[in-house]
C-alpha cells in the first residue's frame, strides 16, 4: 500500500480514503486528557441531490447491500428574488425551532450537516431523535438529508491555531454550503444557510451562498404569516428594543459550569430533580441521595426558573432560613393575575412585594411553631430542562381585544405546577377560550415568565374532543393513527386470518415452520371472564379434575408475539407506546385494532393462538408441576364477571364447563388466602366509573367500582401465571429477564400519616413487614364509621412506592420482591395486547422453552434498560391520563346535578382543608376564604392537625380536624381565569 503524507498529518491510504488524527483535550474530574482518534476522510459521500449526475456513480452499498436514496428534489422550492434553493441548517436553528422544522408547510429540501447533528446530539438527545426521524421519514414530502461533511475530504476543515471549537464548527458548516453551491452549480440550485448566530452570518457575508436568520428566512416564504405564528420567541427585545432598558425584575444568574463542577465535587452543591408541590407552585423539593429528607426550595427567586421535573443544581441556604414545608395552597393561575404580558419586565412593584411579603411572614410563623424544619436551598443552575410541548389556554385578561396586531399574551398551562408562558401571537382574540399547544423557547433571567410560541389549536375549551386531545398531549400519550409502515406488518389476510385447522398439514407448516411446536388444546373447555363489553380478551382459563384428585388448571394468554415479531416497525411502535391508555370515552391502543380486538383476542367459538401456562395443583392449591407451551385453543364462552358469577351460583348447571369454573373459584379462594397469609396488601384507591349515555355519549352517572368473587378468581390465576413465568424467565435469562418489583415503602413516607392517626385516633401503622402493615391496616377501624378503614387504605396507598418494571440484572435477587403482593419475584405476562412488558415476557418465555430464539434486543442489558425506562414512564402517564379523564367527566356529571355529599378531611393546611368525596372519587381544596369571612381569626394548629375558624353563616367557632367526616356541597364551576372546570367543594 502506498502511504504518502498529505498536508497537515493526513495520509493517503488508497484511492479516495485518507486518514488523519483528531486530537482534542478533554477535562474530566479536574484533570485534562489528550484524546487522539483516527479520522478517515473519503470522497464517496454523495450530495444526495437528484439533480446531480456525478454522485450516483460514486456511491457504495451498505452492509445490507442497499444504495443510498437520492432524496433532495431537482426542482426545490422557488423563492422570490432567490430562486430554487436548498436549505442548510445551523445547530441553533435545530435546537430552537425543531417544531418549525417538523411543520409540514415549510422547510423542504433541507441539508443537515453532520457537525450540526453531532452538536444537537450533545445538547439535547430528544431533539436529535426528532431530527433523525425527520430525515428518515420525510422521503417524499419534506426531504431532509444528513450530509457527512466531517468525513468528506472536500468539506473537512482542520481547526486553526487559536480557533475555538465553535468557530471551527461554524466554519465547517460554511464550507459545506460552499461545497454544495459549487457542486450543484450546473443545476443552478442556490444554497441558503439559516442561522441565528449573528457572528456566523457575518463571517459568511463574503461567501457566495446566501445567509439568513430564521426570521428573515421565514419572511421570504410565501406562507410566512402562517408559519411565523409558530416561530420560537427568543427574546422580545429583538422586536421591541425599547423594552431592553427596563430591567427591574431579574432572576439570579446561573453559576458557570466550572463552579458547578467544583461545587459538586467538594460537596457544596447538590444535584437532583426538582419536584414542584402540587398545592403550591412556589415550593419545590429536591431529593438528594445524601439527605434523608428532601431539600426544600421556596419562592420564585430561589426556584430560579426551574420547571417541574428539571434536573437542577442547588446550594443550601443558611440554617437560619430553614423551614417546614409550607401549609399554604397556591396556584399559578390565581397568583399575579394582574401582570401585564406586554411589559413584564416592568412589574408593579407594590403588588408583588405585598403578596410575597405576606407569604413570607406566614411561613416564618409556622416555621417557628413547628420543629419540623427542613433544610432549604436555592437553584443555582439547571443542567437539563424537562421542557416539552404544553397544553394551556390564553389568559383572557392578558389579551387586548381592541388592537388587532401581534401582541404578547400569557398562556396558563393545564399543569398547575408550572408558571404561565408568554407568547407572541397575532391571533390572540381568535384563540381565546381555546385549548392550545405551546412550546417553550427560553427563559432569560430578566423575564419573569418563560417565553414560548404557539404551536397549534386543539379546539374549544370543554369540547370533548379538544379536552381529550389536550389530556393525551399533556400526558405524552401517542394517539395518532398507526403509520403505514406499522400496518404493513399485520397479516395480509386481515380479519379473515384463521388459525390452521390441521396443525400437521404440510401447507400450514410451510407457512409457519414453528407450527409443529404448538400444542393442540382445542379439546379443553376454556372460557374467558372479563368486564362487560370487553373486546380485547387477553386471557382465558380452564380447569379439570385429574384422576389423582389434583386439578389441571390452564391460563391461556393471547399469543401476541406470533404477530408482533421483534425488530419490525410494529414492534417498535408497540415498544414506544408501551401500554394502551383507557380513557372514559376512548381507548388508545398499543397495537393496531386488527390484532387487539380480533386476531389476538381470545374470542369464543373460534380457534386462536395462545401462550398457555398449565399447572397441576393439589387440593391446597399448591403447585405440583407447571408447563408452558404455545398452543391453539378454542374458547367455549366469553363471560362477563356477572354472568360468570350467576353461572357458578346456579345450582342447576352441572355441565363440565361450570364444574371447571367452580373448581377455579374454589382454588382461587385458597390462593388468595395463602397470599394474604403471606402478607399481601389490600389497598384501596377511590376508583369510580363514569357511565356514558349510549345515544348522546354524554356522561350519565358516576358509580363506584364493584368487586365480585369472579374478579378475584381471574386475578388470582393471573398472579399465579405471572409468578410462574417470572421464575421461568429469570431461570433462563438471569441477567435480562423482564420483571416487576415493588419496593418496601421507606418509613419516612408514613411519618405524617402515622402522626395523624396517633393524634386523632390513637392508632398506628406498622412498617416492619408487609404482613405487619396488612395487619395494622386491618386494625385501623372506627366502629362508628365503616368508611374510615377504606380512607386509611387510600391514604396509605399514596405513601407507597410505585411498582416498577426492571430487568433482572439491575437488582439483586432480594430486591426483586413485590411488596404489595408479597412474592419474591413477579412479572407481567397476562396482558400482551395492552402492555409491552408482557410482550417482552412472552418472547423471553418462548426463548426459555426453546420455541424460538430470543431476539438480541431482549438479551442486551442496555436495550432492556431503555425498554424498562420507557414502559415505566408510559405506564405512569397512562394512569395519570386515565385519572384525569375520569376527573374531567366527573366534573361534567356534576355540572348537571349539584348535591350535598359526605366527605372526609385528609389534609389540613394553613389556608384551607383538603376533602375527599368517596361517592365521586373527587378530592378538592376548600380555601379558607370560602370557610370564613374573617380569615385573620382562623388558627391553624399543626400539632393537632386542626384548623379553627369562624363560620360564615352562623358566626360560631368551628374546628376541623383531619379525618373529620364533613358534609360538603359539591358543584362544578368553570374557573374564569383558567377556564378549567373543576369540582368546587363548600363546607356545609
Amino acid at each position, binding site marked *: 500500500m502506498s502511504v504518502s503524507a498529505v498536508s497537515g498529518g493526513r495520509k493517503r491510504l488508497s484511492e479516495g480514503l485518507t*486518514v488523519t488524527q483528531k486530537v482534542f483535550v478533554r477535562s474530566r474530574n479536574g484533570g485534562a486528557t*489528550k484524546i487522539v*482518534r483516527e479520522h*478517515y476522510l473519503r470522497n464517496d459521500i454523495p450530495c444526495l441531490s437528484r439533480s446531480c449526475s456525478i454522485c450516483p456513480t460514486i456511491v457504495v452499498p451498505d*452492509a445490507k447491500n442497499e444504495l*443510498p436514496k437520492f432524496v433532495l428534489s431537482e426542482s426545490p422550492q422557488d423563492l422570490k428574488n432567490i430562486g430554487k434553493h436548498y436549505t442548510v441548517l445551523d445547530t441553533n436553528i435545530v435546537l430552537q425551532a425543531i417544531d418549525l422544522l417538523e411543520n409540514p408547510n415549510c422547510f423542504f429540501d433541507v441539508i443537515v450537516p453532520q457537525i450540526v447533528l453531532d452538536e444537537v446530539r450533545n445538547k439535547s438527545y430528544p431533539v436529535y431523535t426528532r431530527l433523525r426521524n425527520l430525515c428518515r421519514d420525510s422521503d417524499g414530502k419534506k426531504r431532509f438529508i444528513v450530509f457527512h461533511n466531517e468525513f468528506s475530504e472536500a468539506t473537512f476543515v482542520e481547526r486553526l491555531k487559536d480557533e475555538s471549537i465553535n468557530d471551527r464548527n461554524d466554519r465547517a458548516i460554511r464550507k459545506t454550503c460552499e461545497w454544495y453551491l459549487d457542486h450543484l452549480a450546473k443545476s443552478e440550485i442556490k444554497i441558503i444557510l439559516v442561522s441565528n448566530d449573528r457572528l456566523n452570518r457575518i463571517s459568511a457575508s463574503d461567501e457566495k451562498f446566501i445567509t439568513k436568520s430564521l426570521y428573515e428566512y421565514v419572511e421570504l416564504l410565501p406562507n410566512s404569516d402562517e408559519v411565523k405564528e409558530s416561530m420560537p420567541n427568543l427574546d422580545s427585545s429583538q422586536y421591541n428594543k425599547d423594552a431592553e432598558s427596563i430591567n427591574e425584575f431579574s432572576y439570579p444568574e446561573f453559576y458557570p459550569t466550572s463552579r458547578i463542577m467544583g461545587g459538586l465535587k467538594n460537596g457544596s452543591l447538590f444535584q437532583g430533580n426538582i419536584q414542584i408541590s402540587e398545592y403550591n407552585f412556589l415550593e419545590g423539593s429536591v431529593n438528594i441521595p445524601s439527605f434523608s429528607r428532601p431539600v426544600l426550595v421556596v419562592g420564585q427567586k430561589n426556584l430560579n426558573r426551574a420547571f417541574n421535573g428539571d434536573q437542577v443544581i442547588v446550594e443550601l441556604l443558611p440554617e437560619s432560613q430553614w423551614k417546614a414545608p409550607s401549609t399554604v395552597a397556591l396556584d399559578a393561575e390565581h397568583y399575579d393575575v394582574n401582570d401585564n404580558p406586554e411589559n413584564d419586565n416592568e412589574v408593579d412593584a407594590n403588588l408583588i412585594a405585598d403578596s410575597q411579603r405576606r407569604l413570607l411572614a406566614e411561613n416564618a410563623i409556622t416555621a417557628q411553631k413547628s420543629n419540623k424544619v427542613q433544610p432549604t436551598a436555592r437553584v443555582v443552575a439547571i443542567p437539563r430542562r424537562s421542557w416539552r410541548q404544553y397544553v394551556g389556554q390564553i389568559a383572557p385578561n392578558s389579551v387586548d381585544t381592541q388592537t388587532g396586531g401581534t401582541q404578547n399574551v400569557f398562556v396558563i398551562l393545564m399543569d398547575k405546577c408550572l408558571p404561565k408562558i408568554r407568547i407572541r401571537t397575532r391571533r390572540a382574540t381568535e384563540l381565546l377560550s381555546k385549548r392550545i399547544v405551546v412550546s417553550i423557547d427560553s427563559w432569560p433571567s430578566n423575564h419573569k415568565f418563560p417565553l414560548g410560541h404557539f404551536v397549534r389549536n386543539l379546539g374549544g375549551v370543554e369540547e370533548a374532543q379538544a379536552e381529550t386531545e389536550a389530556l393525551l398531549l399533556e400526558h405524552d400519550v401517542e394517539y395518532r393513527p398507526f403509520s403505514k409502515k406499522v400496518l404493513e406488518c399485520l397479516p395480509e389476510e386481515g380479519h379473515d386470518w384463521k388459525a390452521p385447522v390441521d396443525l400437521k398439514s404440510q401447507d400450514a407448516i410451510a407457512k409457519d415452520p414453528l407450527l409443529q411446536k404448538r400444542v393442540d388444546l382445542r379439546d379443553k373447555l376454556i372460557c374467558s371472564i372479563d368486564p362487560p363489553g370487553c373486546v380485547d380478551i387477553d386471557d382465558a382459563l380452564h380447569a379439570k379434575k385429574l384422576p389423582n384428585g389434583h386439578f389441571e388448571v390452564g391460563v391461556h394468554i393471547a399469543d401476541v408475539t406470533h404477530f408482533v415479531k421483534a425488530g419490525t416497525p410494529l414492534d417498535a411502535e408497540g415498544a414506544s407506546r408501551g401500554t394502551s391508555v383507557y380513557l372514559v370515552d376512548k381507548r388508545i391502543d398499543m397495537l393496531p385494532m386488527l390484532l387487539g380486538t380480533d386476531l389476538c383476542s381470545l374470542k369464543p367459538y373460534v380457534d386462536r393462538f395462545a401462550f398457555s401456562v398449565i399447572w397441576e395443583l393439589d387440593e391446597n392449591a399448591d403447585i405440583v408441576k407447571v408447563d408452558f407451551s404455545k398452543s391453539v385453543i378454542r374458547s367455549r364462552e366469553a363471560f362477563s364477571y356477572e354472568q360468570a358469577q350467576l353461572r357458578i351460583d346456579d345450582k342447576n348447571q352441572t355441565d363440565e364447563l361450570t364444574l371447571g369454573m367452580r373448581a377455579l373459584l374454589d382454588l382461587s379462594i385458597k390462593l388468595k388466602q395463602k397470599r394474604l397469609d403471606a402478607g399481601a396488601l389490600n389497598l384501596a384507591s377511590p376508583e369510580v366509573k363514569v357511565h356514558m349515555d349510549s345515544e348522546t355519549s354524554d356522561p350519565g352517572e358516576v358509580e363506584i367500582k364493584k368487586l365480585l368473587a369472579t374478579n378475584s378468581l381471574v386475578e388470582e390465576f393471573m398472579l399465579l401465571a405471572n409468578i410462574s413465568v417470572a421464575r421461568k424467565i429469570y431461570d433462563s435469562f438471569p441477567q435480562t429477564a423482564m420483571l416487576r418489583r415493588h419496593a418496601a415503602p421507606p418509613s419516612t413516607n408514613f411519618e405524617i400519616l402515622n402522626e395523624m392517626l396517633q393524634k386523632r385516633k390513637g392508632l398506628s401503622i406498622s412498617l416492619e413487614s408487609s404482613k405487619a402493615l396488612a395487619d395494622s391496616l386491618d386494625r385501623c377501624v372506627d366502629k362508628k364509621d365503616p368508611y374510615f378503614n377504606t380512607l386509611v387504605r387510600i391514604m396509605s396507598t399514596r405513601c407507597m412506592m410505585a411498582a416498577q418494571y426492571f430487568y433482572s440484572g439491575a437488582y439483586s435477587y432480594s430486591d426483586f420482591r413485590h411488596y404489595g403482593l408479597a412474592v419474591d419475584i413477579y412479572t407481567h405476562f397476562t396482558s400482551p395486547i395492552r402492555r409491552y412488558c408482557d410482550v417482552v415476557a412472552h418472547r423471553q418465555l418462548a426463548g426459555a422453552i426453546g420455541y424460538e*430464539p430470543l431476539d*438480541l434486543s431482549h438479551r442486551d442489558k442496555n436495550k432492556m434498560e431503555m425498554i424498562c425506562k420507557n414502559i415505566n414512564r408510559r405506564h405512569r402517564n397512562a394512569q395519570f391520563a386515565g385519572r384525569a379523564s375520569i376527573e374531567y367527566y366527573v366534573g361534567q356529571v356534576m355540572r348537571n346535578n349539584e348535591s350535598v355529599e359526605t366527605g372526609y378531611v385528609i389534609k389540613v393546611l394553613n389556608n384551607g382543608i383538603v376533602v375527599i368525596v368517596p361517592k365521586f372519587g373527587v378530592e378538592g381544596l376548600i380555601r379558607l376564604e370560602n370557610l370564613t369571612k374573617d380569615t385573620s381569626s382562623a388558627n391553624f394548629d399543626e400539632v393537632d392537625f386542626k384548623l379553627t375558624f369562624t363560620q360564615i353563616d352562623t358566626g360560631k367557632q368551628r374546628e376541623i380536624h383531619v379525618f373529620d367526616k364533613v358534609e360538603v356541597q359539591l358543584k362544578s364551576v368553570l374557573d374564569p381565569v383558567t377556564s378549567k372546570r373543576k369540582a368546587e367543594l363548600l363546607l356545609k
Partner: protein
Amino acid sequence: MSRFELYSPEGLRLDGRRWNELRRFECSINTHAHASDGSSYLEQGNNKIVTLVKGPQEPILRSQLDATKASLNITVNITKFSKMERSKSSHKNERRVLEMQTALVRTFEKNVMLHLYPRTLIDIEIHVLQQDGGILGSLINSITLALIDSGIAMYDYVSAISIGLYDTTPLLDVNTLEENAMSTVTLGVIGKSEKLSLLSVEDKIPLDRLESVLAIGIAGAHRVRELMDNELRKHAAHRVAKSSAK
C-alpha cells in the same frame, strides 16, 4: 445508551469508515536487528506494537526444556502510557494479560513447526506502545511478522482481526470506542484458507448472526495477510538487492 452514533443510518462509523473497511495498516520487519533474532513494528490504526523474537535458544530454566520440541514463551508488556490516561499499575500480572498470553501461545504452538527445534526455547517479547481496540488481533499479526523475520519455520501466515456486531451489522476492525460499546469477536485465520486458529468471543453474540460476522472477518483477515505479504516481499526484495550489490 451510547453517547455516540456508532453506525449512522448513512452507513458510516464513528471514525468515518464503512462497515467493511480496515483501519490504516502499516508494518515493517527487522526493526530491531541487533536486539533480537526477529522483530517487527506494526501500526494498525492507533495500535502500535513492537515485537521481538529471541531464539531458538537454550532454555534458561531446565523446566522449559522439552526433549521433543521447542517450547514457546510469550510475554506481553502493555505499557502504562498506551491508553489515553496513564495507568498506575504495570499490567504485568493482570488476568486479562495472562489470558491473552495463553491464547497467543496456543495459537502459535499449532502454527510454528516446534518439532524442528527440540530442547530449545523460543522467546517472544511484545511491547504495546499505544492501543486503540482490537488489540489481540494486532498482537497476532505482529508476532507472525516477527517470527517470519526470525526465520523460524511456520506452516503459513496467521492473520487476525476483530469484528464487532452492531445490532445486525458486523463492523470490521473495531476501535476502542466501538469495542466498548458492542460485542466483538476476534478471529485468527491461517493463510488463505478458511481455517481458524483462534476464535475468541468474550461477550454474547447471537448464534444466527455469527455466520455473517465470521464471513466478513475471514475476508478481512485475508486482506491483512495480503498487506503483510506485500510488506515482506518488499523488504525481501530490498535485502536481496543489498546483498547482491556487495
